[in-house]
């Protein structure tokens, strides 16, 4: 027989001691300029939650990219440096080498990291710089109006591929994360997403590992986070997340690509 449950009122429940989820203190009060439903906000929040949990706010230095997240320093309440388009891994290299006790990370879109910044990305990974790269893949150049990126899927429409990406003409979608996993300098390489509660939990664990490996001086951690660009993809946010599940993730499957060998 079903037991009669006591129904608590909102006043009973909404009390300081019952608070189980709150916005991290390491996000500033500024409202994100991102489009409604854009995954950049979740990615920002998770990185700041990890920095807060590891208590390294005064030791963390982030490098902001060029792209929609160019203003990341307005939201992450830590020391940050803006890079020229694609050059974040080079800046991270310099900052980490001069201040090895800091936790240094880059935050880069797929146009930034996998197009204009390919050289910096590959060489920082190959050198095994002791930094973290957070690679935010939305399959498109969001900021400039939804042009094709190296990561754009075959047949995917963008403002520069209105009939869909034609492989013969425009080449193959670049799996740069799999590519850097082949380089000896990368220690931990993974692909995550933030569109569902379970995915968010896993993505946060991956971000945390990247910081912990940096502390242990293991070399470069590369964490791809797939997000929607609903305005660039011309979809409602919820539909964009569904489309991502059905189309984007089969080509860019989630999970670890390179994990440290167990000794």
């Amino acid at each position, binding site marked *: 027989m079903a*037991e*009669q*449950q*006591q*129904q*608590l009122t*909102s006043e*009973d*429940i*909404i*009390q300081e001691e*019952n*608070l*189980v*989820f*709150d*916005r*991290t203190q390491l*996000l500033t009060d500024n*409202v*994100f300029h*991102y489009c*409604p*439903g*854009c*995954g*950049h*906000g*979740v990615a920002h*929040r998770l990185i700041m939650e990890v920095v807060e949990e590891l208590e390294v706010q005064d030791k963390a230095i982030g490098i902001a990219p060029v792209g929609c997240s160019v203003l990341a320093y307005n939201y992450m309440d830590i020391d940050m440096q803006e890079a020229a388009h694609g050059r974040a891994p080079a800046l991270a290299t310099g900052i980490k080498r001069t201040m090895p006790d800091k936790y240094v990370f880059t935050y880069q879109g797929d146009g930034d990291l996998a197009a204009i910044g390919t050289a910096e990305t590959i060489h920082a990974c190959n050198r095994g710089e002791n930094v973290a790269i957070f690679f935010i893949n939305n399959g498109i150049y969001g900021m400039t109006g939804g042009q094709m990126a190296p990561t754009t899927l075959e047949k995917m429409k963008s403002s520069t591929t209105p009939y869909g990406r034609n492989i013969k003409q425009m080449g193959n979608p670049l799996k740069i994360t799999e590519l850097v996993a082949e380089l000896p300098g990368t220690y931990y390489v993974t692909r995550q997403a*933030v*569109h*569902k*509660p379970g995915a*968010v*939990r896993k993505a946060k664990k991956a971000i945390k590992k990247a910081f912990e490996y940096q502390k242990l001086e293991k070399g470069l951690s590369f964490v791809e986070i797939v997000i929607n660009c609903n305005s660039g993809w011309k979809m*409602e*946010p*919820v539909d964009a*997340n569904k489309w991502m599940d059905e189309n984007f993730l089969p080509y860019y499957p989630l999970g670890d690509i390179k994990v440290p060998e167990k000794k």
Partner: protein
Amino acid sequence: MAKLQGRIVVDTEKCKGCGVCIPACPFDVIALADNVNSKGFHYAYMKNPEACTGCVNCALVCPDAVIQVYRKKATA
């Protein structure tokens, strides 16, 4: 027997009405309001507050980090 009961508090002025929190909720607690905030967004609210368990799923996926979650154990 104890049962967890929850409530969410949405910062309605900062909510962008994206609706991403709605399918994330396993108990169909959230809907978008008919009213709009000062930016014109239909903000999220609890249409079904008694069903909330405080699982935090909605807050995990909210791109704007505008959901607070409270949870309390109720005893039978």
